């Protein structure tokens, strides 16, 4: 492959969603030669689907709001395995990051006094859980992600960021010292493969909800960054922690924002009962998402589900009135009509918990630097590699993310990584140039697919993978089902290794991309499965019938999945915020 072209940038950002664009903006503003490489045109990234808002203590709805309350909610919401230094950083830097977005032009909804509109979201409180429900989620109607993503793309255009649109990252290039020095990438339009060299490779590839059969996630959410990290031999953290959003539209899986409940909507079972009052007497429908999702599943399992098959519950919005629906939730009305054939002004929306968000990912510090582990269990920075957004596990979300915290995570840590990389580049970093064999190592799987003769088809294998995950690693989990799932995945891995790509053309070959994505889905699914089997407790989104209680003695820890040995280790949770007292683990109720 001596003819392969190489491109060189100060920083290469892989992924053009909110996190990647925010990092790209910071770096291009600093004058660094920065490229954002994305498999879709940036505004097609999954950030665009975020609806309800970005949670941040900007003290608009409540002038006395306090970032410490937001931090408390975040740590509690994460069932105490969120890193408190990271949660502190996010909640203190958040207001700056949100005001910057507004200054860039983000069309936030407004209060009468002209300030940014904020709505209540799940798991929010005043005064460290003692002051009742807070309204802390800044919104642009129910299209906040769309508004945020377009605004960031526009800001990057203004600042001259280089875009490699519709390029697909295949694997990380690692030098002899184990530093990450770039990535192999494929131009989808031409089929050309190049090596992109850089002193800072930023993974901003988003989530991987497509490992499940039913998900709110875009078709592109295939865990490409997780796959690349695992194939580079790096560990990933807390992969058993998957959020099931309470309100995916039954059948279609399309998301209906938690903002619906924030604006006053609520869930009912087939008897018309507002059942969340039984499970979460204080917060009711605005309890943590894990709590609400479990309650819904219990209602369905106990025979109080709605519909012919009793397999969903209803989200009631009609009492809010047309004005609120049109003004605050216009996108929801549209989606509901399209995908549930229901007009929420006069009928409830059928909803069911649906895979939504990956709390786990590549462990990082607050600067976005990727972290692996030394043999003695201490952290080891992976030189040259950064991760931001959903692919990262910094970890602000712990075992369960609060609504509205993902958009904040994207902009706060995209920005932080950009700033850190800028200063690191200014101080000067030198890594060994990759050798031809380093580059060849990153080309192995592309070559495998390109040389495959015949074999099972990609869509069929993908469907099986999604079914295994859906059956064995859903809202509730148990040992025997998970063991069976792990075994099935192990068989599936062997079959995928022999699967075939029949279309070998160069120009816009989407079959090749889907094959490469399947490899990544497999990596994510396996890490999830083995980590879930190993964590023998229930915490946040990870609920086990056989271990129903939280076990702080053994599992007040991050899990760390090591791909080479397929082993799960532990990593300490940070309990050392810089400016406030740490929040001690308490029983988590809403």
């Amino acid at each position: 492959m001596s003819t392969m072209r190489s491109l060189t940038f100060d920083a290469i950002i892989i992924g053009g969603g909110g996190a990647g664009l925010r990092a790209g903006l910071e770096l291009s503003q600093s004058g660094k030669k920065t490229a954002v490489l994305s498999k879709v045109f940036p505004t097609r990234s999954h950030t665009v689907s975020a609806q309800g808002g970005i949670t941040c203590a900007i003290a608009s709805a409540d002038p006395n709001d306090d970032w410490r309350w937001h931090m408390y909610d975040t740590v509690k919401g994460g069932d105490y395995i969120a890193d408190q230094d990271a949660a502190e950083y996010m909640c203190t830097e958040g207001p700056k990051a949100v005001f910057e977005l507004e200054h860039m032009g983000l069309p936030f909804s407004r209060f009468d006094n002209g300030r940014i509109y904020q709505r209540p979201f799940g798991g929010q409180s005043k005064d460290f859980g003692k002051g009742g429900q807070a309204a802390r989620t800044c919104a642009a109607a129910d299209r906040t992600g769309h508004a945020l993503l377009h605004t960031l793309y526009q800001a990057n255009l203004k600042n001259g960021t280089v875009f490699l649109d519709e390029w697909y990252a295949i694997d990380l290039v690692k030098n002899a010292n184990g530093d990450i020095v770039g990535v192999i990438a494929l131009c989808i339009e031409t089929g050309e493969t190049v090596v992109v060299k850089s002193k800072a490779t930023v993974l901003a590839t988003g989530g991987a909800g497509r490992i499940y059969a039913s998900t709110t996630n875009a078709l592109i959410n295939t865990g490409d960054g997780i796959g690349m990290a695992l194939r580079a031999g790096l560990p990933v953290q807390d992969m058993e922690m998957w959020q099931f959003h309470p309100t995916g539209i039954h059948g279609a899986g399309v998301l209906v924002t938690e903002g619906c409940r924030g604006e006053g909507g609520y869930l009912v079972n087939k008897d018309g009962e507002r059942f969340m009052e039984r499970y979460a007497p204080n917060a009711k429908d605005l309890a943590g998402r894990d709590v609400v999702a479990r309650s819904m599943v219990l209602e369905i399992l106990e025979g109080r589900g709605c519909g012919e098959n009793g397999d969903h519950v209803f989200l009631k919005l009609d009492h809010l009135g047309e004005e609120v629906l049109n003004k605050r939730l216009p996108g929801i009305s549209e989606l509901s009509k399209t995908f549930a054939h229901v007009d929420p002004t006069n009928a409830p929306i059928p909803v069911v918990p649906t895979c939504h968000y990956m709390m786990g990912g590549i462990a990082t510090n607050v600067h976005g630097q990727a972290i692996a582990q030394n043999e003695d269990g201490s952290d080891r920075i992976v030189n040259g590699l950064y991760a931001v957004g959903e692919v990262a596990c910094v970890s602000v979300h712990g075992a369960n993310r609060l609504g509205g915290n993902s958009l904040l995570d994207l902009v706060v840590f995209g920005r932080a990584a950009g700033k850190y990389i800028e200063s690191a580049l200014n101080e000067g970093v030198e890594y060994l140039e990759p050798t031809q064999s380093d580059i060849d190592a990153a080309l192995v799987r592309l070559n495998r697919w390109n040389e495959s003769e015949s074999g099972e088809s990609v869509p069929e294998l993908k469907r099986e993978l999604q079914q295994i995950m859906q059956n064995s690693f859903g809202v509730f989990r148990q040992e025997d089902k998970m063991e069976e799932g792990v075994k099935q995945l192990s068989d599936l891995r062997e079959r995928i290794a022999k699967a075939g790509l029949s279309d070998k053309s160069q120009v816009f070959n989407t079959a090749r991309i889907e094959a490469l994505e399947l490899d990544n889905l497999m990596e994510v699914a396996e890490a999830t499965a083995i980590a879930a089997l190993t964590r023998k407790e229930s915490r946040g989104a990870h609920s086990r019938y056989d271990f129903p209680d939280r076990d702080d003695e053994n599992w007040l820890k991050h899990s760390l999945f090591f791909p080479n040995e397929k082993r799960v280790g532990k990593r300490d949770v940070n309990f050392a915020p810089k400016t406030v007292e740490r929040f001690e683990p308490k029983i988590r109720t809403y």
Partner: protein
Amino acid sequence: MLQVSIYRYNPETDTAPYMQEFQVDTQGRDLMVLNVMEMLKEQDSSLAYRRSCREGVCGSDGMNMNGKNGLTCVTALSEVVKDNKLVLRPLPGLPVVRDLVVDMSIFYKQYERIQPYLLNDTPAPAIERLQSPEDRDKLDGLYECILCACCSTACPSFWWNPDKFVGPSGLLQAYRFLADSRDTATKERLSELDDPFAVFRCRGIMNCVAVCPKGLNPTRAIGKIRELLLANAT
């Protein structure tokens, strides 16, 4: 069985585009067009098209379905199929890369041309810039654009002058910033648009309004820009 006729062209092997016929068993379900395409791709993995969010917000899958532009992921068969037949073609007027994938460069170029970002020459305050709900309301119907290009590629004026006429999508965005009380560059923006082509090639055909999958009205926005241009004329 649904009869589906699809535009095919692979520049590596085909000298000219052609229509390929497929039969799809929908089992009587009112699927979205995108679901049908996924079924077809399982029959023939070489079929190329773009898709991402599958819920009508990312704008990837603009396409011409039985003669009308729209998003395949939010268009139910019952809305477009006539006589049990579905004809899928790439968005009109743009170069075809492969099958249903078009080269959108000129569309994006027209978007970039209108400076699609807030320009404000006053120092930013420590908090957000204030904006009244009434002023914010002026952005409704404008900021929701998803850049799917359904409108611009349905516009005869854009077909003729894609390099000089900004097109409905770009002009909708131009007005989105002109209408923003926080933007201070109205004069500059208008002077950039003040030529015989950029805005005035719009002939009020309103295909853009008829096809916009988000229910937006570029023609109205263009009318507003015309008014501003006329008011500012010397």
